[in-house]
């Protein structure tokens, strides 16, 4: 009787090592313990069901977690019926802004944004994805993602300056 590694067993072998990484990724981005747990569970269960040739690495699991997070925000946005209102108007071409962010406050601001704005900024800035990669995770075109990012940055800036500078919004 010899030992032949089996696809799912690889996931289990990864589990102990990967759990804090996946949970750490999610908890920072969604700031909600119960949600982070749910998405962590969804991530590992999706990994079990993945095809045989999937790479079985922590980076691969983080990729799954990222999609779960984006799915969650997409669902949340639909729940709030905010998508249409965002898609309607044109975005400005530039939005220059040059300040040093208070990172703690910035994270707090993020949690208060509309889900689709939060998703775009999280993927683009916290995860450091390119616009094209962000677009792929959000399942939008690059152009639509650029527009979304501009709007998200504007919303973020509005709230950030509102909380740090007493409400000015010019």
């Amino acid at each position, binding site marked *: 009787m*010899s030992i*032949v590694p089996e696809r799912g067993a690889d996931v289990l072998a990864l589990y102990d090592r990967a759990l804090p990484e996946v*949970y*750490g990724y999610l908890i920072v981005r969604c700031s909600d313990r119960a949600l982070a747990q749910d998405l962590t569970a969804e991530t590992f269960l999706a990994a079990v069901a993945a095809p045989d040739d999937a790479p079985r690495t922590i980076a691969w699991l983080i990729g799954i977690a990222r999609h779960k997070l984006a799915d969650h925000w997409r669902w949340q946005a639909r729940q709030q019926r905010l998508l249409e209102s965002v898609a309607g108007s044109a975005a400005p071409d530039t939005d220059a802004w040059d300040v*040093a*962010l208070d990172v703690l406050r910035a994270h707090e601001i993020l949690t208060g944004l509309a889900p689709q704005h939060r998703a775009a900024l999280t993927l683009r800035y916290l995860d450091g994805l390119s616009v094209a990669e962000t677009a792929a995770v959000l399942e939008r075109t690059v152009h639509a993602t650029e527009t979304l990012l501009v709007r998200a940055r504007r919303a973020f800036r509005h709230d950030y300056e509102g909380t740090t500078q007493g409400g000015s919004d010019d």
Partner: protein
Amino acid sequence: MTDPLDALRSPIAPVDPDPEFAAALRERVLHALLAAPPQEEAMTDVLLRDGLSRNGTRTGDVSYISVGLPDLARGRAFYGAVLGWTFAPGQVEQAGNQVNDVIPQVGLWSGPQPGGRLVHGAVLAYRVDDLTAAVAAVRGHGGTAGEPRREPYGLVADCVDDQGIDFYLHELPPPGRPAPDNGAVAGDVSYITLFAPDVGAARAFYGAALGWRFEHGSTVGTAPMIGIGGGDDLGAMLCFRVDDLEAAVVRVRDAGGTAGEPATRPYALEADCTDDQGTRFYLHQFAS
């Protein structure tokens, strides 16, 4: 121009989730793994001989015996000569060390056993209905059990009991008819003695882990029949069925093994033997 939002960049910092959540999710992942259909091929049927399962039918039945020997070629020659065994490759082991037709299924093996070490002699595998539950029972009663994994023939977990005896647990496809307690034809395993320093503890362990029940010192309700012996030895010793014990004893000696004189026991004629590599075994000739 720099983008102030670049300050939000958050490389992943590991965070340990709530231990209860972590343990519960691990269980869910394990269950999902076990429930997932195998991708390469469907579970194959158990091996049958004349409709009798060679891999057990009930929780606690012996489903497989891995006979650890230093020299597999010598093993094939010896047991071929003494017991008439013939050999073929298995579903996993491709070198041709699986014994044809014998009940329960037997294979010769020279590699490490579940405890990670070489074992000279038999290492038993037991059939269970619910491998996850059985693994939990083994761990709960002082044994160690590896995570279940899928092999072409079914699910398997590597285990060591609380006294250091290596064994495997198998969750296998639906069975044929139960194998007889003492084998059916010459070459079958007729009885197994499991040697453990603490006989009472061994009965308690296997009773808890596999549901074994004992009557008159041997298991009832599972096959083949197993007795637990005390002393300094550790592990399983096999007994084989033969039609003519006198002739079999001669074959053992001719093949380079040793054999004591046949003795009359209440259950059978019996001879105490060793193979040419020093592996102890018994031969049984039953009345019927």
